[in-house]
């Protein structure tokens, strides 16, 4: 049966229009209303709001906490990208190349944190970091490093670095699977050829594995960056609430504080616009930086 053009476009519309409507309602509308509210002084709890033009944006540039939140966000981005990629790659290579018998078991173990809610992970790690009962301090005491113990999440210096570990721990599994998929798609013959040419395992990794799974690595890095810029808020909110003394506030948690604790919804929306702009710039820059020709052997 030949499909008429009308049928074809009806089918196209059937596929696209509902998605487009959903996308418009849940993505475009909040995006534009966020932009709209950033020009108002509004508590977010009442009907009255006052148009203030660019006042919120001026305030954004004069707010001393904003540069700190941006720095904290990018600190988490950098440490998470490095930590997750190194660990995920290491584990993925180990589980696919080293012919470990228990590989399926390890795969499940490493993926496990991914099925847990970030809130649960945050609470779990709060116990691990607890100054009196926590695993970290007790462990340090046990191996005789008592002077290293400290209230990790309660210290203005150590709270932010302490958030990196749970974030990495929670993130490895997904990217490990992604990279394992990439590695198992590489034909064995490349490794055999490399071996015949005298390449050791390390050289095989750098010259064969890495170039061939570059697309997966690139996607992983982009994904980590985007989810960190948009989502690091959750772990901060659960574990430290941005404190002590703003030392762990990321842009998202500061937005939340301004909009919902300090009742400056308009200013919160302005911070949201800043997050959008910074995320876009970061992703575009990363696309440029990570651009590589596709390798085929």
């Amino acid at each position, binding site marked *: 049966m030949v499909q008429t*053009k009308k049928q074809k*476009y009806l089918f*196209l*519309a059937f596929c*696209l229009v509902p998605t*487009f*409507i959903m996308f*418009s309602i849940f993505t*475009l*509308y909040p995006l*534009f*209303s966020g*932009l*709209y509210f950033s020009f*108002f002084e509004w*508590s*977010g*709890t*009442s*009907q*009255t*709001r*006052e*148009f203030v033009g660019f006042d919120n944006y001026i305030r954004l540039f004069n707010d001393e906490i904003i540069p700190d939140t941006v720095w904290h966000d990018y600190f988490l981005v950098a440490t998470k990208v490095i930590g997750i990629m190194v660990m995920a790659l290491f584990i993925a290579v180990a589980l696919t190349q080293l012919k470990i018998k228990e590989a399926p078991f390890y795969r499940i173990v490493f993926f496990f944190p991914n099925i847990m809610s970030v809130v649960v992970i945050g609470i779990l790690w*709060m116990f691990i*970091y*607890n*100054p*009196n009962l926590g695993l970290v301090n007790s462990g340090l005491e046990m191996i005789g490093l008592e002077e290293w113990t400290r*209230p*990790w*999440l*309660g*210290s*203005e210096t150590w*709270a932010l670095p302490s958030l990196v570990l749970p974030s990495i721990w929670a993130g490895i599994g997904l990217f490990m699977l992604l990279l394992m998929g990439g590695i198992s798609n590489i034909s064995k013959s490349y490794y055999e050829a490399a071996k015949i040419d005298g390449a050791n395992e390390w050289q095989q990794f750098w010259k064969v594995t890495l170039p061939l799974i570059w697309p997966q690595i690139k996607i992983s890095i982009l994904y980590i960056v985007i989810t960190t810029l948009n989502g690091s808020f959750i772990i901060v909110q659960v574990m*430290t*609430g941005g*404190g*002590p*003394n*703003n030392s762990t506030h990321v842009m998202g948690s500061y937005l939340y*504080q301004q909009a*919902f*604790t*300090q*009742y*400056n919804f308009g200013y919160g929306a302005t911070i949201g616009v800043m997050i959008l702009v910074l995320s876009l710039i970061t992703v575009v820059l990363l696309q440029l930086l990570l651009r590589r020709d596709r390798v085929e052997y």
Partner: protein
Amino acid sequence: MNGLLKKQFGLVLMMMLLALLMYACAPDEAPVDDGGSSDEEESSDDEGSSDESSDGEISGELEIQYFVGGYGDSWWKEVISDFEEEYPDVNVTQHAGPTINEEMRSRWVSGDPPDVVYIDGAGSSETQMVEDDQLMNLTEWAEGIELEDGSKLVDSFIAEPSDYDGELYSLPLVFDAWGTWYDMNRFEENGYEVPQGFDSFMSTMGDIQENEDISPFVTTGQHPYYFSRGMLYPAFAAHGGNELLADIVQGAEGAWETDEAVEVMNNVEEMVDAGYVDSGLGALNHTQSQMNFLLGDNAFIPVGFWLPNEMEGDKPEDLQYGFIPSPMNPEGEPMAIVPDLRPLAIAEEAENPEAAKAFVEFVFTREYAELFSEHTGAIMNLEGVDLANNENVPEYLIQANEMINDPEQVEIFYKPHPMSADLETPISDSLVSLLLGNLTAEEFIQEAEEAAAEYREGN
């Protein structure tokens, strides 16, 4: 033909996007105040019609929003059920829970609020609601409310209602007094002296530290305003009276630099320097800090009356709650209490204001005040409630109640209204640094003054 259809399809998509954009960017139906013009477009005088039946009886739907926290909801349920019995034509809808303030926010924003609101818990701010014109002005109406014995309600409060330029927008229902908790059994066993002022506070903390090798004092670093409300407010009140307290709360210029405020902050620094303040407090949340106290890791914690009720399931058997006003007062002078009031208010846009008023009037009786203490272990803001002879009221509350009513022991001070979140947040941030020993008292005062200046500028 194919190209034409494609173009048309693209055009439709574009138009939909444009329509959405225009809708998104168009002002909502909410009145937009663009330059201070009046926004009082609806008066609250629409009462009477459908809400009052022909014989003047109160009827119709009544929506009540109340936060459920450490005090539970059993008292509310009993009162509301009694109210329904008294007013059978009124159908009460309850909106309650620990996150009810967030859940109901969209109703307030859309101009369809519940009729009665109990303002308490995270996500609610009486000051903000007054600033946003969301609460009904009760000044005149409240004058006429009488208690069971005919005495006027406004003359029977333990603590005065919040005052917004002489106007009354809420009636203080719960008298929450922040003070310092300790374990009476532990003190008795170890022979520690219960502090009566700052000097004895320091010496007791010294004894505890020496004897048990712990930091005696803990508070939550995630909500540093607990320290402000629990320790600093009473300290400012004891040193500088209501005047200093009002200046601090309202962000008056130079308030933090007065001799009295400087002395208080130096005292705090002294506590930190002596190692009496738990260095791990920065990470502790509300429950963790209270758990620390229950587990005996610390000996003093400044929180409100909710502590025993909220932590009932976790209390070690041998712990016996003791409550004192925070001992930040000069030794030998009366201790100070600054009540933190949790008010009941009526929405400016209440759909059934008559029933709302009837409910508020119904709640404020000495009978329900006594019942409140039985259910929650806290005090309702009414004078002359006999708790001493009620065996359902916990011991610490009877003692605290006696103390509060004895002017020789304890003096009650008042802040004009709660501190605005815009002022409290930056001060709290610096306060954590001070408590962690990363700021000196002098640096803290400077930062607090800067925060106050910024707050004044923004208002």
